[in-house]
């Protein structure tokens, strides 16, 4: 049987998942060696979610995340060394070492950041989708958040608006079953997060987040739905983190057996087995070669970070207020000296023609009338 997926796609997904895994393993190691400090939330186990999603959307679609945010930009194609440097607190990091592990931003690759307040990025994503709709772009926004964020007010307030205004945004709840050390069922009246979409008449669905191909299919479909102007989607990706909440978490709240069981469900070998079964002429050697390459990439990233200087103290006084005429910083241009060509560009206030009628008058009047109100 011919494969439903191209060899190229399968290998790209494998490469990216392996890169994410290896990057996080090394990040964990560097944390234990004191090179990385503060909070450091690893993505190990959840790779299929970011990678499956990224391959299903366009490079110019917006993406943003919570503070477990190393995986998504890597999947988008950000420079591994500059992310590692950010984790190390070095001047060559994406945010010059000002943000650290929780705040990776790579605007060139349309990754709009990692946010440290639980659920704080959820309304932001709606706003980015709003902007796309306002400008008549067919761009979607993908917003990742953890299961525990679903209990924040921001989640509910935003879903109400997103659905009411049919904003093109895909909310991917990465349900790894624990909000830090608390099992989601312990604090949630409805622990199946995707069901909450129904309260807003919004499309909601659960996906196996340990299967990159299922993630890919689900997000592809959701993106088409959004681009067609049908409104937002809430997707619950059931996944599992093999590591604690952060590096300082021994994860004593869950059994070893549980972790062992989940590890057997590792999305990376799963994809490899799948690909080998397809008639694509792939062998173990192909995957091992990829692994070796990505290991080298990550080793080089660590070396780059380690050899990079700390930010200049002058940086303290930059990036708080935008001074008149000040340009935005393009990290790869600043650090690597490469010419960044596809930086977001927005139409000027004179070029832009807003044609969207967010609430047609007839609709509003009908609602008023129904409520017994006449103006």
């Amino acid at each position: 049987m011919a494969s439903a997926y191209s060899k190229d796609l399968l290998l790209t997904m494998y490469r990216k998942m392996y890169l994410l895994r290896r990057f996080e393993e090394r990040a964990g190691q560097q944390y234990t060696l004191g090179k990385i400090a503060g909070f450091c939330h690893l993505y190990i186990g959840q790779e299929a979610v970011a990678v499956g999603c990224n391959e299903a959307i366009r490079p110019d679609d917006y993406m943003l995340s919570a503070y477990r945010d190393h995986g998504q930009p890597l999947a988008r194609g950000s420079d591994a060394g500059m992310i590692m440097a950010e984790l190390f607190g070095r001047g060559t990091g994406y945010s010059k070492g000002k943000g650290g592990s929780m705040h990776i931003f790579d605007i060139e690759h349309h990754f709009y950041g990692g946010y440290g307040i639980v659920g704080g990025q959820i309304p932001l994503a709606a706003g980015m989708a709003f902007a796309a709709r306002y400008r008549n772009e067919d761009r979607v926004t993908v917003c990742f958040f953890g299961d525990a964020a679903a209990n924040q007010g921001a989640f509910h307030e935003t879903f109400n608006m997103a659905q009411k205004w049919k904003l093109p945004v895909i909310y991917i709840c990465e349900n790894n079953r624990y909000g830090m050390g608390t099992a989601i069922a312990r604090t949630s009246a409805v622990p199946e997060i995707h069901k909450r979409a129904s309260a807003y008449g919004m499309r909601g669905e659960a996906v196996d987040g340990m299967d990159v191909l299922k993630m890919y299919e689900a997000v592809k479909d959701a993106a088409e739905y959004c681009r067609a102007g049908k409104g937002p989607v809430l997707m619950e990706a059931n996944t599992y983190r093999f590591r604690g909440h952060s590096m300082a978490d021994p994860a004593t709240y869950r059994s070893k057996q549980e972790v062992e069981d989940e590890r057997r469900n590792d999305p990376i070998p799963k994809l490899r087995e799948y690909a080998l079964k397809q008639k694509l002429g792939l062998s173990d050697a192909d995957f091992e070669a990829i692994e070796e390459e990505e290991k080298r990439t990550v080793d080089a990233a660590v070396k780059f970070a380690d050899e990079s200087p700390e930010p200049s103290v002058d940086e303290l006084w930059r990036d708080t207020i935008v001074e008149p005429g000040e340009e935005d910083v393009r990290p790869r241009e600043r650090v690597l000296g490469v010419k960044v060509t596809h930086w977001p560009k927005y139409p000027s206030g004179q070029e832009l023609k807003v044609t969207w009628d967010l609430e047609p008058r007839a609709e509003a009047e009908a609602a008023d009338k129904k409520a017994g109100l006449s103006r």
Partner: protein
Amino acid sequence: MPELMYREALNQALAEEMERDANVFLIGEEVGRYNGAFKVSQGLLDKFGSARIIDAPISELGFTGLSVGAAAVGLRPVVEMMTWNFAILAMDQIVNNAAKLRHMSGGQLRCPIVFRGPGGAGGRLSSQHSQSLEANYAHFPGLKVIAPATPADAKGMLKSAIRDENPVIMFEGERLYALKGEVPEGEHIVPLGVADVKREGTDVTLITWSRMYYFCMEAAEALAKEGISVEVLDLRTLRPLDEEAILKSVRKTNRAVICEEGWALAGIGASVVDLIQSQAFDELDAPVVRVTGLDVNMSYAANLENATQPDAPKIIAAIKKVLYREGA
């Protein structure tokens, strides 16, 4: 020059800026079909349509965060807070996202957005609806905070705020909206960060902003009859402070009184006093005195409410105190 109400001046600024720049939109509770809880957005829905004048659900955190996200990708939102008391619900989005996007992204993102609405006591509304919260926001790097007192400044500063590349917090006043003043037509821009000597004087500098400005002018006029010359300095922008203007005036008069509607502890006036004592100690002929709201929650009863707030007699007493003319 035409005389306009404060709310009309704001309306004019909004209309002009939205005309000039299609990236500007207004979002808030009751801003559209209702024409604004305080009629600031009167007529704008008809003019600009429902995508640019947006009636938001009562979700302060939600629509504030949505607007911050829109600003991060190039739009220029104006977020109307029905009052700043309600915006406390949105503070996370303002403080943790709007004020920090530039920083967290290492200069990749900017957040050109205006949050505006009335602050201060509205009149017989009790404690939850009668707070002057500007000091809270002035505390945060990454924000600009403005509080114009006159219709002309309201127009000129809102236009500047919309054109600014940073998040700007604008405190209007429930009791200011109906006040009238001369407002220049068309392109009238008042730069942010610049204080204004609204009345020149030689004996004492009276520093204030927003609604208290009117009590200060009243006090200054009354004192002029007693031969006391009061210089009234309207700060207009609370972050960044116009330190130069404050020091210039204090160096001239050698005495200062600061009047603010909010509470004394950790108030803006405290920072102004700090500036004066550290930079102009040798120019002082008397300790600086503050007139502030009393350190209590606002009551509903009229007499209690009046007693809680600064007014002209309290300001006059403070000025006499720094001039050592008590009982004079």
